[in-house]
């Protein structure tokens, strides 16, 4: 018998049977959701991995270029050159619904119409290395944005997959077996009650016949 006590009544039995149908259906749907989420997640996470490798590689190259540039340019000049940017990047954000997970979509917009217009300094007082460094950084920026989008999506989807998996498991291993067990218990109990009523009736009938005809005295 199940750990929780259930009323062995016909009403309870109907209720449980309905609940079981819903649970089985929900389990099937959640399982489908989990599988589809998992499929998309794996695609996304593979992309995440390649993007990250590329971005990390790119940033390292850019950093090397910056070290070179710094060696040739005094700090003060560098600050003046870089910290008053001409270009500004803003993001438009959208949402995409993937199996009830809302993942972000980022679209970058630059303030000036030419995205290559990022040299915020005159070329006269800085070394060419600095141009190279800024260029190498700006080259990987699209990848970096895509990486942000993909990595956040992966995090959100991972959380959702974990949640869905728990629900599927709870339904499959706890809720559904428990309900089946309860239904079995109620059916048995009802059958047993019916049999005992039957026997009682037979017994009463015997007793009444006995009173009317006094079979045993003959």
């Amino acid at each position, binding site marked *: 018998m199940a750990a929780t006590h259930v009323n062995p009544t016909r009403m309870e039995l109907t209720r449980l049977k309905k609940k079981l149908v819903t649970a089985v259906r929900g389990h099937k749907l959640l399982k489908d959701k989990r599988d589809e989420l*998992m499929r998309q*997640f*794996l695609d996304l*996470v*593979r992309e*995440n*991995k390649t993007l*990250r490798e590329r*971005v*990390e590689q790119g*940033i*390292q190259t*850019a*950093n090397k270029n*910056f*070290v070179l540039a*710094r060696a040739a340019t005094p700090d003060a000049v*560098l*600050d003046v*050159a*870089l*910290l008053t*940017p*001409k*270009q*500004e*990047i*803003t*993001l*438009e*954000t959208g*949402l995409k619904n993937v199996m009830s997970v809302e993942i*972000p979509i*980022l679209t970058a917009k*630059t*303030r000036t119409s030419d995205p290559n217009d*990022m*040299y*915020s300094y005159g070329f006269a007082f800085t070394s060419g290395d600095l141009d190279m*460094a*800024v260029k190498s*950084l*700006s080259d990987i*920026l699209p990848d*970096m*944005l895509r*990486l*942000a*989008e993909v*990595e*956040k999506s*992966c*995090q*959100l*989807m*991972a*959380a959702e*997959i*974990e949640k869905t*998996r728990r629900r599927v498991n709870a339904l499959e291993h706890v809720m559904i077996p428990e309900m089946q067990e309860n239904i079995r218990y109620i059916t048995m109990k009802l059958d047993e009650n019916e049999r005992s009523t039957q026997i009682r009736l037979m017994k009463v009938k015997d007793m009444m016949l006995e009173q009317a005809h006094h079979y045993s005295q003959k």
Partner: protein
Amino acid sequence: MYKIAVLGERDGIYGFAALGLSVFPAEDPEHGARLLRRLADQEGEQPYAVIYITESLAAQIEDEIDRYRSRRFPAIIPIPGVSGNTGAGMRAVRKSVEQAVGSDIIFGG
């Protein structure tokens, strides 16, 4: 309209200023954590949708970053700083895989 922020040691991030991202140099982990909180919770006209953070700083304020993991914005993305690639970024991706699948099947670890 959202903006992009870059957070970390000054030397590793000032290049991004030229591209038009907002850079926020952090001197120590506490300062970094405070900055991160301010940037991430900033409402109003132009909040930050993406915050890039250098791996060395990210490793020190992991708890702060984890708080924003389940939120849609901002996306906090670790990037390698001047000290080189520590692999922390990849570890974060691996963590996602482990959370979703139960074991790491992408990186073969």
